């Protein structure tokens, strides 16, 4: 039986903050989007107060005072590095890994002759110890089921399954039916709010009802992707990552190479094409990105070959969805991490620090996919370089400063604990 695991970090951004600021442990903490605008991550304590995801910070001020909610400005340099660490620890557990987002990884555990629940606990323990990040593990016979299992591992639909690892493959048919009848259809991977409303409109309210619905009807009334989701719920593995909407918080584009890649120029090509794909998605959802992470990996399952995995997050001077600017930043990051002499198996980029396009000021250089002049190009990469080294906003376009209301706010940003000599945590 196919066994796919989805491992994700709990309240990932908040967890990253807590690793280096133990005083935040047990306190209600939120992380705000760039400009300190909206809530992009909530600790368990904040969720318990009923604070929704995405709510603007100014609307929270009163509640925050009342309950002592601590707000941290987003720190993508730190999150990117911790993400990198988390993904490489998880990679030790299976030769087949697909990184899905900054805090989610799929692992293929098919054919592992093990108690997978115990194995899942081992993964949790190691990631927790090595990185300090708490994770949950969901296992199922397709990616959609793995996602759902992961949801069960967090929520106590079944009390015995809520200790961070759930393996749906171990449930009997009736047990599964019983469980899926108690989960709202909106929890299914790729079923957003709009689709959920339409499904409820035709009487499909639970996961079980969606699982039982007719493929041809779903294909006719919705689309082929949702039909595949139904097939996946029935244990048929048929969804490629790309086909399911990414979480709004970041956009990821990466691939394993069919043959080992050695040279920088080949990696450059790959990274540029990933960047433009991701930038297309970004524009499609009307967002801009404030940072881009680029990473390269050798094949951990050829232990005789020299191993090298590295990623770096490049902060952009100014949030953008311009393909060219994003690719430029990715190439700059790649140049910094590339080393000759390794057989690279995989490379990828991830756009982070996303926010809606209408929340950023008009930028001097954000020509929408227009070819830039050579001077603007050079200027752009120089600025990126300075800002990557010296911190965001060191050098900015004048367009930002004219209207002070637009100035980048990140008033309560933690240190870049893992990437800057000047900003390490202190022990007494």
């Amino acid at each position, binding site marked *: 039986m196919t066994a796919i695991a989805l491992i994700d970090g709990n309240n990932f951004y908040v967890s990253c903050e807590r690793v280096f600021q*133990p*005083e*935040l*442990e047990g306190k209600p903490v939120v992380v705000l989007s760039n400009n300190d605008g909206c809530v992009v991550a909530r600790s368990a304590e904040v969720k318990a107060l009923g604070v929704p995801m995405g709510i603007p910070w100014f609307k929270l001020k009163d509640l925050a005072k009342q309950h002592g909610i601590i707000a941290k400005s987003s720190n993508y340099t730190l999150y990117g590095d911790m993400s990198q*660490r988390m993904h*490489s*620890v998880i990679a030790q557990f299976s030769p087949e890994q697909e990184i899905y987002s900054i805090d989610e990884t799929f692992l293929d555990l098919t054919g592992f002759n093990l108690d997978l629940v115990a194995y899942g606990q081992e993964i949790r323990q190691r990631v927790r*110890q*090595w*990185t*300090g990040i708490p994770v949950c593990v969901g296992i199922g016979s397709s990616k959609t089921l793995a996602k759902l299992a992961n949801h069960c591992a967090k929520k106590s639909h079944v009390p015995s399954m809520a200790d961070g690892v759930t393996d749906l493959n171990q449930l009997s048919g009736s047990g599964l039916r019983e469980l899926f009848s108690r989960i709202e259809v909106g929890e299914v991977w790729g079923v957003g709010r709009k689709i959920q409303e339409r499904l409820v409109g035709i009487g499909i309210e639970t996961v079980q009802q969606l699982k039982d619905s007719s493929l041809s009807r779903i294909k006719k009334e919705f689309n082929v992707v949702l039909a595949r989701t139904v097939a996946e719920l029935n244990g048929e593995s048929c969804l490629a990552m790309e086909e399911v909407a990414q979480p709004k918080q970041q956009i990821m584009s990466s691939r394993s190479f069919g043959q*080992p890649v*050695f*040279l920088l120029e080949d990696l450059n090509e790959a990274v540029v094409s990933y960047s433009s794909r991701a930038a297309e998605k970004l524009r499609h959802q009307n967002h801009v990105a404030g940072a881009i992470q680029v990473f390269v990996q050798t094949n951990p399952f050829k232990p005789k*070959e*020299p191993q090298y995995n590295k990623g770096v997050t490049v902060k952009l001077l100014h949030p953008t969805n311009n393909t060219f600017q994003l690719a430029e930043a990715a190439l700059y990051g790649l140049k910094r991490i590339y*080393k*000759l*002499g*390794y*057989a690279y198996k995989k490379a990828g980029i991830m756009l982070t620090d996303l926010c809606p396009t209408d929340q950023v000021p008009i930028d001097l250089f954000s020509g929408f996919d227009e070819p830039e002049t050579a001077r603007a190009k050079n200027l752009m990469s120089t600025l990126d370089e300075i800002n990557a080294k010296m911190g965001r906003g060191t050098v900015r376009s004048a367009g930002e400063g004219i209207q002070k209301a637009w100035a980048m706010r990140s008033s309560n940003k933690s240190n870049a*604990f*893992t990437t800057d000599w000047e900003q*390490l*945590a*202190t*022990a*007494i």
Partner: protein
Amino acid sequence: MEKSQKSHGGARAGAGRKPKFGERTALMRVPESAQPVVVDFLNELAQKRQVEPKWPSHLTPVKLAENPPVFKVPLFNHTIQAGFPSPADDYVAESLDLNEHLMPRKEATYLLTVSGDSMIGVGIHDGDILVVDRSLTPVNGKVVIAILDGQFTVKTLEKKRGKIRLLPANPDFEPIELKDEQELQIWGVVTKVIHSL
């Protein structure tokens, strides 16, 4: 040894292989799968050299921490008989990689700065950088980073007869006793101290 003045035998001027790179070359072993890539790369390099006789900086054969393992520095020169690999080729020095030495498991390794003199007795000074490996188990006698009242502290861990104490290495500081209800959180094990002189 004196050079004999023979009129024949010995080297003929202009004979033998022409230098392709305009400098001495070294033998090296490369992974078989990488061979075509390396050959292409060297050919390209040779062509570039005609124009720009500069060794690219990332290929300097001796360079700390940047050196990919396929580049090796021969320990001594030796003559090469065509067709016979020289046994001396196996005696090549590895380059030194400080990252490998300081953090064998980099995913689990973090750097922290020291503040204060509580551990001066074991050579940990104010302002030093600590290399902390979270993958290690904190056992009795290890120097650890512990969390006390939401703060990182660096101390020696003592586990004796079920009692846990955190010991400073400075007579001006008191050992920290754990009360029974207090739970000690160990954040990581200190493996190295980076101290500037």
